């Protein structure tokens, strides 16, 4: 704030050159001594110079206007505007109304709302994907489950072969005359093994355990034969099966495949 007693009107009049000679000299002397007034006068001078520049531009613009042709051009524009509604379609009018500058802030807000709303819906409704810690739910990749199934197939095939060996030995190793000794338990076990074999089929094929599959299939066929016999196994049937097992060296093959599987081959 300038506390100098000199009036603002004097400073303005000094700048515009409207002061009488005596008063003009007094103000000029004062400006030499008073830095505040000098600063204000400098500011005012800059404002006036800016205004003069604008005035020049306006003058230039006005000079470029063809004042004689202007009324005709305005009339043409008005007539053209009057015909326009017949040519503009409803959708075009809606588009013009919808995109009018006044509505642009509202439209921008609406678009932002849609984006944010979609994002929040996605975050709320998406399936929970286990992060590094996997949450409290169970989670395992398909690749891991395949490996787990392979491991299960390996173990269960070894178990199937071992148990089959015992059951076959029980059936084929007991003479026909000792039918009672051939326990009904072995028959039950044979049926249980038949029931389990179907689970192995897919895995033995999937993991290309061909040797194990062949041997398991042959054992299954013997069990199917045994499962159909009620009561004592006739000596002739027993001899046939024994010959078949010996001829095809079934027990030897069982042992070899079992060892391979146990060693993780």
């Amino acid at each position, binding site marked *: 704030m300038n506390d100098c007693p000199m009036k603002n009107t004097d400073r303005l009049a000094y700048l515009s050159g409207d002061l009488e000679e005596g008063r003009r000299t007094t103000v000029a002397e004062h400006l030499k001594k008073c830095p505040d007034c000098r600063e204000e006068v400098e500011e005012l001078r800059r404002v006036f110079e800016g205004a003069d520049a604008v005035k020049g531009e306006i003058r230039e613009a006005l000079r470029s206007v063809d004042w004689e042709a202007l009324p005709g051009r305005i009339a043409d524009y008005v007539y053209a505007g009057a015909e326009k509604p017949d040519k503009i379609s409803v959708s075009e009018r809606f588009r013009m109304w919808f995109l009018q500058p006044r509505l642009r802030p509202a439209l921008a807000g609406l678009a932002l709302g849609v984006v944010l709303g979609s994002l929040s819906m996605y975050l709320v409704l998406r399936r929970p994907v*286990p992060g*590094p*810690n*996997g*949450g*409290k*739910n*169970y*989670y*395992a*990749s*398909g690749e*891991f*489950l395949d*490996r*787990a*199934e*392979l*491991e*299960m197939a390996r173990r*269960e095939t070894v*178990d199937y072969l071992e148990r089959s060996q015992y059951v076959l030995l029980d059936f084929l190793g007991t003479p026909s005359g000792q039918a009672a000794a051939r326990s009904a338990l072995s028959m039950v076990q044979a*049926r249980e093994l*038949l*029931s*389990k074999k*179907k*689970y192995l*089929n*897919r895995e033995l094929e999937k993991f290309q355990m061909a040797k194990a599959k*062949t041997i398991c*299939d*042959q054992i299954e*066929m013997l069990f*199917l*034969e045994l*499962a*159909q016999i009620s009561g004592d196994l006739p000596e002739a049937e027993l001899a*046939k099966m024994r010959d*078949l097992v010996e001829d*095809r060296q079934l027990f030897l093959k069982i042992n070899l495949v079992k060892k391979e599987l146990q060693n993780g081959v």
Partner: protein
Amino acid sequence: MGFNMRKIIPAICLVLALGLGSAASGRAFPQAPTDEKLFQEAKLLIFDKKWDAALDKLQEIVDSGAKGPYYSQAVFYKGECLNSIKGREKDALLAYKEYIQLRDANPSLIEKSEGSIIDLAGVLYDKGDRTALKELESRLDHPNRAIKYYAAYKLSLVPDKAVASKAVPVLEQIIRTEKDPELTDRARIALLRVSPESLKSVEDRRPSSGSPRMLRIRIWKKGLKSPEVSLNIPWALADLALSAMDEEDKMALRKKGYDLNKIMNELAKSKESILRIEGEDGSIIEIWIE
């Protein structure tokens, strides 16, 4: 005695006629021994996986028209042969279906036929025959548990999750009611594939036996920000999971003196604490239980 002769003579004639008739038929139609021979030959061929040759012999028994003692078995084994010949899946399915309808069908062979029908339905579905799914779905409430369980297991492998999820109630039932770990572990793996949240729910409802509920494994490879392996699985599958780890990771454990038993023992002793094993290549294996 004299009066009775009138009745006795026709009876003797009848018995003689029947006796001669049956003897004559035995000579004129030696069907039984022929069928038996064919059947034995077919079985040996099946044992050696010579499916086409076996099928010819079995077809001969079936086509003979006489539904003797070997007919039903011939139908069953015909299904077995067709099942093993590529492209004959539909014929095999029909043969098995015919067998299970036979009056003298054997229970063990019926169960085997049902299992094969389920397998064949899976194969046909994979080849694009969507109607084959009916064979699987209709067996989800089969009175024989073995067949019902197997149908659920096979259905869980269908890639379409909406279809596979129909197996969930039976898989849950297996975990809740069965004792055989082979069955329950398979059901757990199937549920992990199809619906891990259902597995969580059924495991949480099981009475607590004092053992932990969940095994967690994270394997961090050097330089990676997120774990390469991330597993949350039921404790019942822990042994299987550790065996199914990648060979490299298993090797890293072995080098540090950890075998599966040691890991299991340490985890069982120190509940909630993390077993952290650093490999020589900078990888880190973290195992903990909850």
